[in-house]
């Protein structure tokens, strides 16, 4: 049975190699870490993403989320080009998780006087006279298990365009294509000077 003898040789060789490799690995001081508590990835190596380079990450595929029909087609470009800062309407961004949508009272603060005759502002005024809130349709709608907060991002020095795209030039506000993909958030969180705390799960999911 020449085959059997050859197979026997192969099997013994493989086992011998395994022992040699394992021994060298253990003797090379890997024993303490090998026997240490099997930590979750985020602490495997400081400053590394959850699985340092091991999972071949696929670049996120930005999809084109649909643009919802708004009750009043609000052109950001008209306001921003006239020098209105983002925080004027979305004032919550620096002190609350949600940036907030301006109240009809805030709109009418200016538009009772400015541009009374333009059709869009006339539409807004009808809501004001009826004392009814404007039923805006939500563009950015993160799933319930993501606790996103604007405040630390602005505290870290980011401005709105970093995530929302250049809304100032938009006639119709379109959501940033990849806002629903975790990879996009990790892109920044990983490349901070000290990524360890920012790549832990409790930053967004709790």
């Amino acid at each position, binding site marked *: 049975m020449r085959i059997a003898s050859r197979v026997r040789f192969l099997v013994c060789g493989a086992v011998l190699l395994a022992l040699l490799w394992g021994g060298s690995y253990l003797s090379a001081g890997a024993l303490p870490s090998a026997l240490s508590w099997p930590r979750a990835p985020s602490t495997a190596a400081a400053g590394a993403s959850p699985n340092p380079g091991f999972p071949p990450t696929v670049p996120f595929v930005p999809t084109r989320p649909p643009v919802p029909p708004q009750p009043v087609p609000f052109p950001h470009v008209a306001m921003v080009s006239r020098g209105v800062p983002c925080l004027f309407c979305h004032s919550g961004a620096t002190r*609350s998780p949600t940036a907030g949508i301006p109240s009809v*009272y805030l709109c009418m603060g200016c538009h009772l006087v400015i541009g009374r005759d333009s059709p869009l502002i006339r539409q807004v005024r009808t809501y004001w006279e009826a*004392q009814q809130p*404007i039923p805006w*349709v939500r563009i950015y709608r993160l799933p319930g298990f993501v606790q996103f907060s604007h405040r630390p991002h602005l505290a870290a020095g980011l401005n709105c365009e970093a995530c929302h795209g250049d809304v100032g030039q938009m006639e119709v506000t379109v959501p940033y294509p990849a806002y629903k993909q975790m990879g996009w958030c990790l892109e920044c969180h990983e490349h901070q000077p000290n990524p360890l705390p920012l790549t832990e799960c409790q930053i967004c999911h709790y």
Partner: protein
Amino acid sequence: MGRRIGRRDLLKIGAASAVAAALSGCEFPRPWVHLEPYVRPPEEQVAGVGTWYASTCRQCPAGCGIIVRVLNGRAVKIEGNPQHPLNEGKLCPRGQAGLQDLYNPDRLQGPVRQAERGSRRYQAITWEQAIDDLRAGLSRAGSSLVVWADHTISGHLLDLFERLTAALGAPPPVVFDLYTALSGYAALSAADALLFGQARLPAYGMEEADVVLSFGAGFLSTWLSTTHYGVAFGSFRQRPLDRRGYLVQFEPRSGLEAAKADFWVRLRPGSEAPVAQAIARLIADGGVGPADRVSRARAWAPAVDPEAISSASGVPIDDLRRLAGTFATAARPLAIPGGALTGHGDAVAQAAAVQVLNVIAGGAGVGIAPGPPAEGLVAPVAAPYGRVQRLVERMRAGQVGALLVWGAANPAYALPPALGFVDALKQVPLVVSFRPIVDETALWADLVLPDRTYLEAWGYGVVEPSFGVPVVNSQQPVVQPLYNTRATGDVLLEVAKGIPAAAAALPWPDELSFLRERIAALPPGVFGGVGEEVEWARFLQHGFWQPRPGPGALQAPEARPQPVVVPAPSFQGAAGDYPFFLYIHMPVLLSDGRGADKPWLVGSPDPMTTLMWQTCAEIETNTAIRLGVTYGDVVRIMSPYGQVEAPVYVLNSVRPDTIAMATGLGHSALGRFASQEAEGPNPMALVGPAADASGTSMAWANIRVRVERTGRRVALAKFEDTRGSYGGFVNQAFADQYL
């Protein structure tokens, strides 16, 4: 809960997978979500950041201060008011569950009329019709009007009721509910009147005490002021006088206090007061401790024979002597009369017998509440049970033209059926309930005009008992009213306009102006403020008013010695055919039944039995073996006045001759959680109609019962594994190491 959340809800709160959306690339058409901003935003609210509003907790009569986190117009969390002198930022479980009063799914959405009483067919009516009906009823009733209020009523509403009844020539409102009845409010006030001349509730400074003898007082679960005594217990255990406080609990059944006590005296039910007198006698005879105490003891101690009392109550005589010695030599001893000792014999004398110990000890740390700080303010005073008996007689005789029931009094559930309140109701032409949820009394009501829950309503509350410094709580709506409810104060003022006799007495346009006028009478308090507007704003912002900061010292007024005669314990029901004593207690979560409609309370485990959604009959281990019953067996418990069926729970911390039962369940109304989901006996069905000798409280603590097996079994909704908690496994090593 069973699976009642629909697919749509799951999508809304489900875990949509981002990856699937990315990979699929195409978005199936989803329903758009609208984001409706304010029209006129309130200036103090930022979207996404909670705003805290201060108010008062109305889950029990204590009156702790609370702050409520409101986020985007929704109340999401109740916490204790950190500045409040009574609870210092802490809350008991019932206080935390207040949100489920506000957002209870079974709340009435508007005024309803019940054409045929007890039919549960409520027909929605408009507020105008409701007010017309009420006005017609009141004008017809005239002086035969009776108002029945709960002890957690806001001061200004009670004031309005008093003015209305006075204007119509009717008797003043009856303030009576099961919580104050079983806690012995009326009897304790009467005892203080007997000893100190002021008919006010006693207050005990437990945080500085070093020895506390508690005669059946449930001060950690449901008594005068649960959270305050909880906070005080924290410092009582933290070496107030450079040694750890020593707590002795005299109770036939182990509640939270007996579990935490350093020495638990498992005495026979009904013998608390005689044991207190025996201790007083032993202090007088023993002559141990400071001279002034011994002399006072000799002056006050009743002529009783400690040996006889020791054998009658089942407490060994050397324990009594040791306790007498400990009490006499303690730096700041306290003796606290509990609710159970006011439920039989002569309630006032028995409460006074325990207060005598405090007098002997010098009265330090024992305070008598000074009453409302300003003459314009009104505080509810618990009506003696005799007055309730007479009222039921008058109802049965048809002398009551209209009965208005406000709040969680719920007499149809609270009063013993033997008193016959429900069929007495049939003789009353108009019964109106103001409770936001349909309870047992509202089942037999003609009109239910739902008041706003306390988180949607205005009001004030005089903290009774207050600890050294008088406190008045403010109460403001923290959210917009949820449904088409109207404040009862406004309803009364609206009704009074149509009745000539009452119009003069109640001229105010709405209850808020009446409230502002009453509060303006308060002198400037801790938070200063000059003009009325600024003071009112501060009053609401901080949640309470206090004349001067800091806890005041508690010192009992002088009392002249007088004999306190305690009758020998007597029991209802012959010993022969009713071999067991019945010990009724109020659990910490359900209290007197007002907790049964809130899932957070009725669905959380009871500390001693770990039962949820159920209450049981607690039987001692050997007695259970003798009766041949075990966990979950349904037994029929019969007293001379009625019978109930309850599952058995075997606890080896009850006296062998006692069956302990918790109040709170056995509801036929009060919403889906209390009536359909929860199951349990109502022990009041076993109680007789009689009052105690002094007429101040029900005779509910000296009932004898008989136990019969029904052969049925019920699966117990418990949290613990009885093999683990009881079996031999909890050996001494485990206990020493961890417990």
